[in-house]
Every structure is written in structure tokens, then in C-alpha cells.
């Protein structure tokens, strides 16, 4: 599915990603755990190929194809998309239209906009004709973003902190949607710093100092994250002794 090989990224003279290796499996939910500032969103931007995040070292391979040099839309047409942590707002664009855009290049049997909204716990009648603009609350916008990714039926969905800004009553919908992706054969890269959310993953990786320190069972990775990374003072300044730590199982 997705293979990141020796990935590195320098932004404004600062090493943000460093010797990063990661491999996801078809249809799995793969959690990426990391504290604030460790490069989680940067990693998402690199995989998607956003501007400013294309000058990487190493390679990004998707379904056997090297996509490192492909622009965003080409990656999307190969089945890679993302739900942003803070999604963009669109004046004058209705929710129905926004969800339909994702369907243009959707995989097999796309869900209708109505079905997508219901999956994320939003009543279609109340939302389809609303604009994707600032009249939506942050939580509503994030759920519509998830619905938009659902509508596309991607092969790889990068979900950047889908749980942040969501009220407690709605978090179950988010969790269920993530599981729906997986049931439909979509691989999910689930970025979060909430270890409880990461535990719904099939596997997880701990991102610290711009590199993957540990990959494996999500409970074990969450424990590793709690013990080693939450208090880590070396955000984006990886030190050799940490990488060579015997307790780390890559």
C-alpha cells in the first residue's frame, strides 16, 4: 500500500522529518501518535504532496508506484486524500456540491452525499444546502470533511486529528466512520495525539522528533508514547541516543 522510505524534509533550515520509514497494509487503520510539534501534520502534507512539502529526500511509494514527484491532484486520482485538521471554508459552495466534488474521482459505488452526511451523524435535510463557510461550527465542518472523504471512497485516507474539536457526543460517529473506511477497504492513516483514539487502530506508530520510533500493536505503541514521547523535550531535534535506544522496536 503506502511505503515511506528514508523520508526527510527540511523547512526553513530546520529538519522536520528525519529518516522516516513507514509501511501501511491494505485496509488497516494505522495510527500515528505524536505530541504537538513532532511533525504529524507535516507528514500528512508530505504524503499528500502539498505545496511547500514536496522537496523531500527519500521516496513515497503507493501501490508499487513512486509518487514522490506527483502533484496533489494526481495523488488524489490514485486514491489518496485527506481530512484536514482545520478544514478550509468555501464561500458560496454548498455541502452537497462539496461532497459531490469528491465523488467525481471516487472508487467503486460511491456513497451519495446524503448517505455520507448520515454516516457522520449530520441530518442531510439540515446540511445539504448550507454553505461550507464560516456559518458552520468547527465540529460541523470537521464532520463534513470526513463525509467528503467518505464520498470519495479513497484507497488511502489521511485523517489529521479527526477527533479534535469534536464534542464528546459526536466522537462515536467519528470512530464509527473511521471503522467504515476500513470495512470498505480504505487504508486509514489516523493522526492523533489521543492515545485512546489511536487504540482503535489495527497498528500504530509513534512519531517523535520527526521520525518513527516504534511501530506495532496500538496499545503497546500508546504505552510507549505515554512513557517516552509525551514529555519529550527534543521535538524536531532527534538525538542519536534516542534512536538507538534498545527499548525501541521499529
Amino acid at each position, binding site marked *: 500500500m503506502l511505503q515511506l522510505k528514508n523520508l526527510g524534509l527540511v523547512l526553513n533550515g530546520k529538519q522536520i522529518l528525519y529518516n522516516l520509514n513507514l509501511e501501511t497494509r491494505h485496509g488497516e487503520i494505522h495510527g500515528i501518535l505524536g505530541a504537538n510539534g513532532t511533525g504529524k501534520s507535516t507528514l500528512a502534507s508530505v504524503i499528500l504532496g502539498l505545496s511547500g512539502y514536496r522537496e523531500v529526500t527519500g521516496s513515497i511509494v503507493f501501490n508499487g508506484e513512486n509518487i514522490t514527484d506527483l502533484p*496533489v491532484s494526481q495523488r*488524489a*486520482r490514485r486514491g489518496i*486524500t485527506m481530512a*484536514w485538521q482545520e*478544514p*478550509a471554508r468555501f*464561500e458560496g459552495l454548498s455541502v452537497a456540491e462539496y461532497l459531490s466534488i469528491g465523488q467525481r*474521482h471516487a472508487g467503486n459505488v460511491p456513497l451519495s452525499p446524503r448517505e455520507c452526511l448520515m454516516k457522520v451523524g449530520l441530518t442531510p435535510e439540515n446540511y445539504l444546502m448550507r454553505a461550507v463557510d464560516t456559518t458552520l461550527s468547527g465540529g460541523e465542518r470537521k464532520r463534513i470533511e470526513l463525509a467528503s472523504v467518505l464520498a470519495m471512497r479513497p484507497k488511502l485516507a489521511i485523517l489529521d486529528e479527526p477527533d479534535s474539536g469534536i464534542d464528546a457526543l459526536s466522537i462515536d460517529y467519528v470512530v464509527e466512520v473511521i471503522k467504515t473506511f476500513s470495512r470498505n477497504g480504505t487504508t486509514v492513516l489516523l493522526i492523533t495525539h489521543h492515545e485512546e483514539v489511536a487504540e482503535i487502530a489495527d497498528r500504530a506508530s509513534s512519531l517523535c522528533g520527526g521520525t518513527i520510533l516504534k511501530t506495532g500493536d496500538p496499545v503497546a505503541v500508546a504505552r510507549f508514547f505515554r512513557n517516552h514521547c509525551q514529555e519529550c523535550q527534543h521535538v524536531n531535534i532527534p538525538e542519536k541516543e534516542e534512536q538507538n535506544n534498545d527499548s525501541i522496536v521499529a
Partner: protein
Amino acid sequence: MIQLSHDFEEIAEAYEASGGQASSLLDKQSASLVVSHNKILGKNEIPGVRIEGEETPTGAKASITVAPGTIVQKPVHLCFGVIPKDGIQEIISEFNIGEGARVTFQAHCTFPNAEKVKHTMDARIYVGKNAEMTYSETHFHGPSGGTEVLPVVRVTVDEGGVLKNEFKLVQGAVGRLQVDYEGDVRKDAVCEFDARVYGKGDDRISVKESLFLNGENARGLAKSRIVSSERCQSEVIGEAVGNAPFARGHVDCVEIIKGRDARASAIPRLVVVDDRAKLTHEAAIGSVDKKQVETLMARGLTEDEAVDVVVRGMLR
């Protein structure tokens, strides 16, 4: 009564092209006025809505009066335009909306073949006490950009009245557009100006929206959404003057530049005369927001397609 003629058919066709429904110009239940060049081709009055028209050598004069307390169920349709390649159309108009009346106007201005056309509109609008008027004006132009469009609108919104004015020019290339709107907003009244323009080619766009919040608790919004593409140059002046206690005004301008040779400027001007008034503004000028574009590209659109979606949405 509307008399069908070749001229009428031509302008009705252009009216359809601009988004209007020509059948509404023939609907006896709807008030309407059709002016092509300097000919009044059609006029329909309904109870409570009086329309007086007079042809002039270069255009027409129109006076539209809505009787106090009249709730006009269907929009009043206005159609102006010049069908030939050249010509002048000067429209002088007065709107008097009686106390407590409620009315919506849908105006379409069509210049499909213009190469050297001048269209001026000198409008005086009076919205009476507790009356509500919505005026939506949509322009349709051909590709040559050979039109001068010069609307000057002076509005008085009396106590408790509401005026919502929308100007839209997004189809075709205009040439030169100079919008000049000014509102005198009285006690507890509301006045909203909203201009949406897509400038192309060598278009020169100037939009000036001024709100004089003269009555206690008056409310005003001067909103503009302008896209300047190719070699278009645009300038927006959004002005609000708080002359009365508790008046609230907001100037909201977004201009998008598409193309290296396009230019845009925005000048917000806020003047607080009464220290209990509050005025705000926001303005953004630049290329299309990168995050918006990349979000749509992540759904499979090309960059050009994504920009088009963002721009079209903003100009709706």
C-alpha cells in the same frame, strides 16, 4: 401592456442568457418593465405597484411606486439592455417604497453584442418606514468588453426600513464598470450593499459603497467580492460613517487576483462621528487561498478546476 415585437424577442433572448426567465416578463401577475436602448418595450403594473415610464433620446426615465402596506408576492422584473454593437442607454429611475410595503426587484441588464456601449443608471431609492426592499441586479455581457457601465445609486432607508441591494456582473467582459452606491440609513434601519464582479481581459472595475449611518441603531453592510483576471484592474472603496448612537457598520471586501498582470486595491474608510457608534472592516486581497485550492485538489480536481470552483462560489 406588453406588445411583442422583434425588439422584445431579442431582448427577451438576452434576458434569458443573463439568467432571467423571459416568461416572467409576460406574466400578468408580475409587475415588469422592459427597456431596450431607448425604447420601452413592455410595462406591466399590478395592484399596489405603479410604473411610469418615459422614453428619452438616450434612454428612459422610470418611476416605480409601491403603495404603503403592499406586500408584493412576486418579484418585480426589470430588464434593461442594448442589443446592437453600439449605443447609449441612460436610465434615470426613482423607486418609492411606501411605509410597511415589502417588495423584491429582479433586474437584468444585457449587452450581449456590445463593442461600444455606454449604460448609465442614475437611481434614487426611498424605502419608507418599516418597508423592505430587495434589489438584485444581474448583468450579462458579451466577450468583447466594449461596455461602460456606470450605475449611481442614492438610497434613503427610513426608520425601521430594510434595503438589500445586490449587484452581480460575472458573465462576460464588461470593459469599464464604475459602481457608486451611497446609503442614508435612518433610525433602526438596515442597508446592505453587496457587489460581485468577475473582471476579465482589460476590464477596469471600480466599486464604491458608502454607508452613512445617520439614525440611532442604524445598521449597514458594504460587501464586495471581486475577481480580477488577466489584465483587469479593480479598486474597491468601502466606506462607513457612524453619525448616530449605537449605529453599527461593517465593510467586508475580498478581492482575488488571477494572473500576473491583474491588479487590485481596496480602501476601507471608517469614520466614527458619534462615539457610541461601532464600525468594523475586513479586507483580503491576493490569489486564491492555497488551502482551499489544495483541499479541492485532494479530491481530484486539477489546480485550474479548483480555482474555478472557489471563484465561482465566491461570486454567487
